[in-house]
């Protein structure tokens, strides 16, 4: 072995590299893994599902195999009115988030309560399930946990979706996939900074706010406003629609790209969408030859732009 005169060096190299791996991987990930999940991270993983980036169930990032977030005002079993309740519906075959498959990533507290009171171990992704977030007490502290209401109350996915109706159903899970695929996170961070962003962009995330989310995609290069709490600042669906079709319609100085192709081929009324014609008319408006810009078409309820708008409005 021609490296024998470098024995000492090779050993030192091994020790140095192993040491740095120990400090930069083993200790931090162990530390992070012990942080209990907050209510925010329970909500995020139940909204976004198993994986928003490339995965076996949605390889082309079309927003398939994602849960739906519904707001209920009636009990889906009895039909009686009840307090507004947010439920996360996983149709049969939809993958559960990591926290259901591996409850230990929920951390001490949420894990025990979700298993004992929430019966999440009884959930079966081939049959589908409905979850809600509840609060219990763990070692004297108020602790959020996930409840599998399919097991505890017999709520079935189809029944819950029918009770809520399309208007109260959010495709924020599929929308997160759009957010990843369309590269929104190259400019819009999801990370108000701890030092100075409180006033403008709101509360920065805490360590436990990410458990079970993948990818976190909170961004590094901010060329546009932070979006973590954008739904609290602007909840207008119509504004979002105009802004996504051409941001210059509502913000003349914006440098955001147009996302008009997310409308698909036809609008909500079945009319074909002609982007070239729209652009030409918009150019005429821009040059002062028209008084009003061309109309922005209504989107279909199953279009990709609906997913994305639902995602953005869900960022409270």
């Amino acid at each position, binding site marked *: 072995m021609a490296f024998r005169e470098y024995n000492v060096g090779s050993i030192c190299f091994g020790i140095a590299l192993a040491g740095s791996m120990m400090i930069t991987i083993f200790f931090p990930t162990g530390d992070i893994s012990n942080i209990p999940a907050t209510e925010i991270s329970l909500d995020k993983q139940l909204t976004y599902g198993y994986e928003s980036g490339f995965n076996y169930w949605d390889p082309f990032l079309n927003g398939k195999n994602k849960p739906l977030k519904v707001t209920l005002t009636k009990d889906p079993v009895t039909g009686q009115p009840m307090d507004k309740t947010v439920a996360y519906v996983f149709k049969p075959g939809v993958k559960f988030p990591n926290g259901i498959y591996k409850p230990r990533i929920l951390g001490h507290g949420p894990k025990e309560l979700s298993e004992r009171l929430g019966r999440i171990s009884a959930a079966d992704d081939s049959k589908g399930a409905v979850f809600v977030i509840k609060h219990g007490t763990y070692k004297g502290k108020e602790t959020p946990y996930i409840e599998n209401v399919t097991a505890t109350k017999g709520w079935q996915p189809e029944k819950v979706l029918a009770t809520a109706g399309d208007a109260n159903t959010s495709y924020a899970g599929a929308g997160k996939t759009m957010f990843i695929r369309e590269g929104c996170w190259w400019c819009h961070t999801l990370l108000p900074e701890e*030092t100075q962003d409180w006033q403008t962009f709101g509360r920065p995330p805490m*360590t436990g706010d*990410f458990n079970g989310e*993948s990818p*976190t*995609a909170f961004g*590094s*290069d901010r060329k546009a406003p932070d979006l973590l709490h954008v739904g609290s600042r602007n909840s207008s669906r119509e504004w979002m629609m105009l802004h996504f079709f051409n941001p210059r319609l509502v913000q003349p100085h914006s*440098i955001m*790209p147009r996302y008009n192709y997310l409308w698909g081929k036809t609008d909500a009324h079945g009319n074909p969408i002609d982007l070239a014609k729209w652009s030409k008319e918009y150019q005429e408006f821009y040059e002062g030859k028209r008084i009003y810009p061309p109309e922005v078409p209504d989107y279909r309820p199953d279009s990709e732009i609906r997913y994305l708008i639902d995602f953005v409005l869900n960022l409270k």
Partner: protein
Amino acid sequence: MIKYLFAKEEDIPQGSAAIFFAFSSIVWFIVGTGLGSFNAAKLAFPDWFTNSYMFQFGHMRQVHVMTVIFGWIAMAFAASMMYITPALGNTKLWSEKLGVWNCLLWNVGLALGLATLWSGMTSGREYSDFIWPIDLYIAAFIAVPWSLNVWATIVNRRTQGIYTTNWFFAACVFMTIIVFLIGNLPEFFHLTGLNEGYMTWWFAHNILGLLITPVAAAITYYMIPKITGNPLYSHRVGHLHFWSIVVFYSTPAAHHLMSSPLPEWLKSFASVEGVLILVPAIAYVCNILLTMQGKWTMFVENVEIKFTMTGVFLAIPLNMQGGFHQTRAINWYIHGTGWIVAHAHLALLGFSTFAEAAAVYYGIQVLLRRKLYSLSLANFHFWMLLIGFSLYWTSMTIAGLIQGAGKVYEVPYIDVVIAEHPYMIVRWLGGTMVFLGNIVWLYNMYMTARAGEVVPEGRLPHEVAYQR
């Protein structure tokens, strides 16, 4: 090159792998900077070339980044290693055939990776955007054969010691495999949450810190003594550089996430380790500058030295920024702004690119035994790169300071966008200059291979470069 894929090892001319890699890297450099210029134009003129899924900024940004890192930077490294490693070991490359295959598989894999990425298939993780099958491909068919060739060449060397450059080459290709496999664990095993976020930046930091910066430095450790004829100023300082890279550069991954909710101890640790990056940085730059003693005229006269030393000079502001801007006192102002974009381009388009361009210029001449076709075009390329880069860096640094002020003084974000607009245009102009310069470079290197004057036996191209 294709005919060598199935040729016998002894029938393949020495340097084939390096030449294949060198020309591939130049082509990818043109593609990468072209994409960069296109992206910059979209930030400056958002209503230009619109309505299309494929040419959306969000689909193209990562394609630019991955093309320049894995197409240009890493392939030019491979080109350099394929001829510098054997030269320093006074031997032949262990396997030219493996090298040629490696280059072919690299081109195929990269094209595949970029195509999937461009079509929207992404892991959603910055710098590890490739989907995990592509990551595995890169580890198995790009990094491992590359590493194997470099290691086996060093093992089969016919010199007693191992020169500084080869320590770096051997260590860095090895660490690249490790970084690739560990950094992508979140995708392989579906690790989620803040661990995924942290591992993303662990990968990003280490691919830069354990591959790109040290290999670029290692190339200059070869180029400067080889071309000037001066021996390296100090091997001891070289030792200091090498060991402090291994110990200090592999640890501050968390400094990319100073304003995120990572454990505070980790951020403090990364911040301190980040300052210690100045140890290898200062050792390295001093060593090279002192090696140049008495030969500074070559900085003006010799195009390879001009490129190499420009890279070394750019390493000074690079490391001064890198050493300090993860400290909490500075980071809060510039984090997430264009300042960081400027810094990343200072590392890749400044320091590394200039060092590697020198190695590619020199390698093609030495291996083909032909003089550079046109020195004027080479100088034109140099100035296009340098002026283009300087415009880019200056405009993005200013834009970053504007963004920093905007976020600290809570200016409505749109006013920041308006204030940045002129700098976005300058950035696009700078990037376009780099792109155009590279097209000239490809032409010059192609003509060198076809029509360059033959270098007489026993002479080196740079010795006869000015005998017109």
